[in-house]
């Protein structure tokens, strides 16, 4: 097995094992996304004809808010326990750390999306085609995780890291937000969104964010 793959798998296995034991990140993400959806359900009195326009935004906001909690813990826990230094002194390329953290967060986000989607359908009574919507959400999660892991490491170096992560991350993920909302709108019947290749846009930004993150990550972790 190539060293890169072996090291990524070792770190991924470690993160998943820790999450299974502590349930720190995923439980907070799921509860928060649930609360966002319920709050929107009470706050917005959406008529069925508006759902294809507004509904995707509601669901994606719930996912982004929930995911931000998990991303915030990506390096905070490592720094708090002093284990980040153990990873930094290992003969591991920084891109290995980035890819492992990216995959960990991506898995958490996909679980979050798979739980949030049925809840969204139930609360807002939206008919959706599951596969296109899930595909769109996963593409969105790839970009979100790629950007979020990078800025989680940046924010971890600051005192106000809980505040800094969304402040840094939200402006950068605007293209992902637009792409996901529009592509999901298409999947649930928003006719006005059909004239743009939203999925291609998402794939392009995912690729840009991932490549940039893997390259820049080395400098972010330097003290």
């Amino acid at each position: 097995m190539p060293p890169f793959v072996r090291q990524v798998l070792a770190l991924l296995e470690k993160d998943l094992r820790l999450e299974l034991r502590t349930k720190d990140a995923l439980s907070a993400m799921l509860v928060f996304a649930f609360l966002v959806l319920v709050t929107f359900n009470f706050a917005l009195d959406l008529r069925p004809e508006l759902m294809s326009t507004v509904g995707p935004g509601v669901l994606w906001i719930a996912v982004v808010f929930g995911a931000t909690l998990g991303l915030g813990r990506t390096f905070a826990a490592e720094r708090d326990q002093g284990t980040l230094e153990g990873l930094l002194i290992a003969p591991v390329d920084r891109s290995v750390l980035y890819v492992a953290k990216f995959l960990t967060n991506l898995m958490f986000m996909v679980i979050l999306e798979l739980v949030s989607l049925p809840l969204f359908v139930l609360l807002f009574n939206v008919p959706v085609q599951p596969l296109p919507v899930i595909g769109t959400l996963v593409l969105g999660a790839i970009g979100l995780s790629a950007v979020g892991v990078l800025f989680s490491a940046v924010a971890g170096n600051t005192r106000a890291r809980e505040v800094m992560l969304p402040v840094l991350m939200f402006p950068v993920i605007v293209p992902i937000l637009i792409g996901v909302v529009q592509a999901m709108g298409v999947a649930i019947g928003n006719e006005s969104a059909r004239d743009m290749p939203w999925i291609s846009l998402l794939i392009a930004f995912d690729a840009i964010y991932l490549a940039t993150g893997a390259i820049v990550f080395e400098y972010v972790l330097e003290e």
Partner: protein
Amino acid sequence: MTDTVSVTTVTVPSPIDAVILRAEHLTRRYGDAIALRDVSLSLTPGDCVALLGPNGAGKTTLIRVLGTSLRPSQGTLTVGGIDALRHPARARSQLGLVGHQTLLYGDLSVHENLQLYGRLYGVPELPARITEVLDTVGLGDHRDALVRTLSRGMQQRAAVARAILHQPRVLLLDEPETGLDDASQTALRELLREWADGGRAVLVSSHRLEWVQEMVNRAIVLREGELVDELQLRSPSAPMLAARYRELVGATLAAR
């Protein structure tokens, strides 16, 4: 029997081909503050070197810079002939570090922690090597215990197991005796001496002169970020070495 004491201030340069670790003119700044100032040192096979100095002297910063977890602001660092600043990932496989923190995950067992680090370092025959190092540090019976459930001393021993797992050529330790009982301190001292005798190098910082002087062959003294002296020790005698140390750093640590 009377101990002959030789405390000199002469730095003996080592042959270039025998040097495992060579640091030259290392400086580390934190903003305007200078934590390390133009420090140069080298470690050769068999070296067991004490890093002495009062609080704030820069010992931890130097250990972290040598361990590549902290980049120096200036200077060069070579480990096993590899430029550790240009190719840190390659140099790190030859370094083992025991810091103030264990660098272990509290919610993983000792075995799971070692398995993780073993896979990151690419340790061959990992299961057998894990068993070997756990026996070496006396944690064979606690391999499946979560690290956070262990006593401070046991956690420190697990940290040592992590640091020697990949058999590094240079072992860097920052006050490793902290939290260890007398028996464990003695065992650790023997382990470090054996490690150096096996053709590797050890650099150990400590406040406790009487603990390090029995195992090291030389000591370097830091004061306010500067390497102020190097003491070549032959049959060291505690009172004279302590006096020399006090003279150098103007501290009372040696008398503790």
